[in-house]
């Protein structure tokens, strides 16, 4: 007889939701989280799309520690001295089910964990799981500190840098091309100042992605999210491309903060935290097996993350995966079969959900990004040059637009431009 019906490793987004679903079905659940409090080891950009959270906790708006509702989507292409920005705002961004909010994980994760605890899940904090206990190929529990604890099923929700996924399902260490390194700072500013700088009411704000100069032309980009009384700003760069960069990533962030399009947004702010995190960017083809005998993977431990260029999502995928994992684990426990075959309901449920649908839809996007370096240097520079011709007036006399633009297009090559556009359209 095992100590618990289920052990959940990690209390980020997937873990507590899975634990909540299991506990709600009357199962005994232990959550082992290596942070001294939930969220202590966790970082995201970050913005949370709430549709998946609403499926599990319909009343989340009552007490979830959310920062600001995102009502301005901004994308900027930066050249060293200039920027071209597209902004989208829409009343639909305030619609339940579509709403997205910025979050800070050290505040959000304890709230999510409290929901699992309220449903009856037990928590151990401050202890990393060293290894999984196995009998043959079957996972039977965990070793954490001096304790060996057994369960009928173990759920790996331990994040992108899982040291256990290999032991669980034979997943190799992620390749350099399927992960990106993120560096981020939280910069405090008064609430009203932030609202004014992104032209929003208090309680609402912006999600802002940047490409080009922030990564000095490397594959990746910059991001800026407005929180209630702080701004999250950072760089994400694909590891495979970053390893031979001229500039180290902490310097990239410093340069990004000093860019003339960015500096005024954070001016006068106080840096209060400097963080780093890996981002799973390999997409569908980088995912490991989702179940093994006695074990399931949910969230970024299974590389569940989407980068579409114009938006990055991980938390809503993790929450949905945690929900399906918890429910399917409870079904398997009821049926008395937590082998890989018994847990297959999870794979099926996930397959029919937006999680696998969206990962499949963007399956070719990681490859497109990696093999289209012009996206990160040539095109942002070209956009800047074109805008200069359009908007700067020095009295030297206007030239017909076609004569101004054609040489710039020719420089890149019409064929290259058409080819990249076609590849890009196919990838998204």
């Amino acid at each position: 007889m095992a100590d618990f019906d289920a052990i959940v490793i990690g209390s980020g987004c997937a873990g507590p939701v899975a634990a909540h679903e299991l506990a709600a079905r009357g199962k005994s659940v232990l959550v082992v989280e290596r942070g001294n409090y939930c969220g202590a080891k966790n970082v995201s950009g970050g913005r949370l799309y709430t549709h998946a959270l609403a499926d599990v906790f319909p009343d989340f708006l009552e007490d979830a520690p959310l920062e600001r509702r995102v009502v301005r989507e901004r994308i900027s292409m930066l050249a060293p001295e200039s920027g071209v920005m597209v902004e989208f705002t829409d009343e639909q961004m305030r619609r339940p089910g579509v709403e997205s909010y910025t979050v800070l994980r050290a505040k959000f994760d304890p709230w999510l964990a409290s929901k699992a605890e309220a449903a009856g899940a037990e928590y151990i904090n401050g202890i990393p799981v060293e290894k999984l206990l196995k009998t043959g190929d079957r996972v039977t529990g965990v070793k954490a500190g001096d304790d060996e604890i057994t369960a009928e099923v173990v759920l790996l929700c331990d994040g992108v840098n899982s040291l256990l996924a290999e032991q669980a399902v034979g997943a190799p260490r992620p390749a350099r091309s399927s992960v990106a390194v993120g560096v981020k700072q939280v910069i405090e500013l008064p609430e009203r100042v932030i609202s004014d700088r992104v032209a929003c009411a208090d309680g609402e704000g912006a999600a802002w992605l940047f490409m080009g100069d922030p990564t000095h032309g490397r594959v990746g980009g910059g991001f800026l999210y407005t929180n209630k009384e702080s701004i999250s700003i950072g760089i994400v760069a694909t590891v495979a491309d970053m390893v031979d960069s001229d500039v180290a990533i902490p310097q990239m962030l410093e340069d990004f903060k000093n860019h003339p399009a960015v500096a005024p947004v954070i001016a006068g702010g106080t840096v209060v935290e400097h963080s780093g995190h890996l981002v799973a960017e390999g997409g569908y083809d980088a995912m490991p097996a989702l179940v093994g005998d006695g074990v399931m993977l949910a969230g970024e431990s299974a590389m569940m993350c989407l980068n579409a260029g114009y938006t990055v999502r991980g938390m809503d995928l993790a929450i949905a995966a945690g929900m399906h994992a918890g429910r399917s684990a409870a079904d398997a426990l009821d049926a008395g079969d937590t082998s890989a075959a018994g847990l297959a309901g999870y794979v099926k449920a996930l397959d029919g959900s937006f999680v696998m649908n969206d990962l499949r839809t963007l399956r070719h996007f990681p490859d497109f990004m990696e093999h289209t370096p012009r996206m990160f240097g040539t095109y942002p520079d070209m956009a800047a040059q074109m805008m200069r011709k359009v908007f700067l007036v020095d009295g030297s006399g206007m030239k017909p637009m076609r004569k101004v633009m054609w040489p710039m297009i020719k420089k890149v090559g019409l064929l290259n431009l058409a080819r990249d556009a076609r590849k890009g359209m196919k990838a998204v």
Partner: protein
Amino acid sequence: MSTNKETTPVNVDAYLGLNKYEVDEGNPHIELAPNPDMAQFMELVRVCPAGLYRVSPDGQQSADFAGCLECGTCRIVAQGGAVAVWRFPAAMMGIEYRYG
């Protein structure tokens, strides 16, 4: 694309000083291989978001893991090479994000 504009050198130690850590003195959770390959060590210099991997002007390699952000990037790049051991800090130890 290269940008040759003047930049302000980052003082990453000052930023790390803002973070909260429980430092496990004398028990680093990352261990370097003896005499790491310089080319691979330079990759770590570029990707570490905490700037922990350093090479002095006379070519001496160093890394102090007390300021580690526990992201795992160096594990992806160099485990089995320049990075001999990568594990999580011991119970109760390491970074404690207050914002995340």
